[in-house]
């Protein structure tokens, strides 16, 4: 008995939903970033499962690009969070309102 495509896509859907829940529920900006990483990982898992299913490496190459994008996104996002923390003294997204949101 081996896992099928549905197993991997189900796991990917569960991971993505956990990530969405984290983004909506948590107010700590760092944890929101970690939840975004969870969602990117879920997308990568779906890419690779479908690539394995179709027998091509295109999905794997796309997963590489997603990893590179995640690295760039984390670097820029953490720099923004550090700048906000330096200015406001907090990273609680409920209390950061200099954009009048």
């Amino acid at each position, binding site marked *: 008995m081996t896992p099928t495509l549905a197993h991997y*896509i189900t796991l990917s859907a569960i991971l993505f939903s956990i990530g969405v829940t984290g983004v909506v529920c948590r107010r700590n900006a760092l944890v929101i970033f*970690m939840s975004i990483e969870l969602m990117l990982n879920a997308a990568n898992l779906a890419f690779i499962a479908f690539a394995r299913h179709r027998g091509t490496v295109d999905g794997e190459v796309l997963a590489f690009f997603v990893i590179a994008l995640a690295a760039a996104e984390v670097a820029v996002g953490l720099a923004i969070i550090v700048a906000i923390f330096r200015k406001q003294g907090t990273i609680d997204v409920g209390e950061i309102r200099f954009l009048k949101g």
Partner: protein
Amino acid sequence: MSLVFFYVFAILTVASALCVIAFRNTLSCAFALVSTFFGVACLYAMLEAHFLAAMQVLVYAGAIMVLFLFVIMLMNLGREEILKIKMSFVGVLGILIGGYLATILLLRLSGLTSGFPQLANFGGIREVGRAMFTDFLVPFEITSFLLLIAVVGVVVLARRET
């Protein structure tokens, strides 16, 4: 046998992902995220994407988590700021939205019951590299520009205003 391994890694991944969004302490969240990345890397290896599994551990569990931990240590969040999360209307709404999304995604999966084809030399570094440097050469170069822009942007953003 491989189904057993799949369930072990899947439960590890989902449990630590739940820990990421449930723990109060940001540092605990970061370490749970490391565990999630390792679980996902194991699943990549089970899908015969060996090179990608190695990259997952190197880039995610190595580089990205070091950045996260560095920023967490840098901010030195106080205890009261960590414990301020409470169950609010928005929190309940978020759990409902997440559950709804999971239900929609899972209901779509009823047709995907086929297994994986047997392939030789699927996820090796040779095949991935060949695809990356022939079919995906232009996106590869654009990715290098993206990383360059990110480096410059981070230096500009994190510079102390004088």
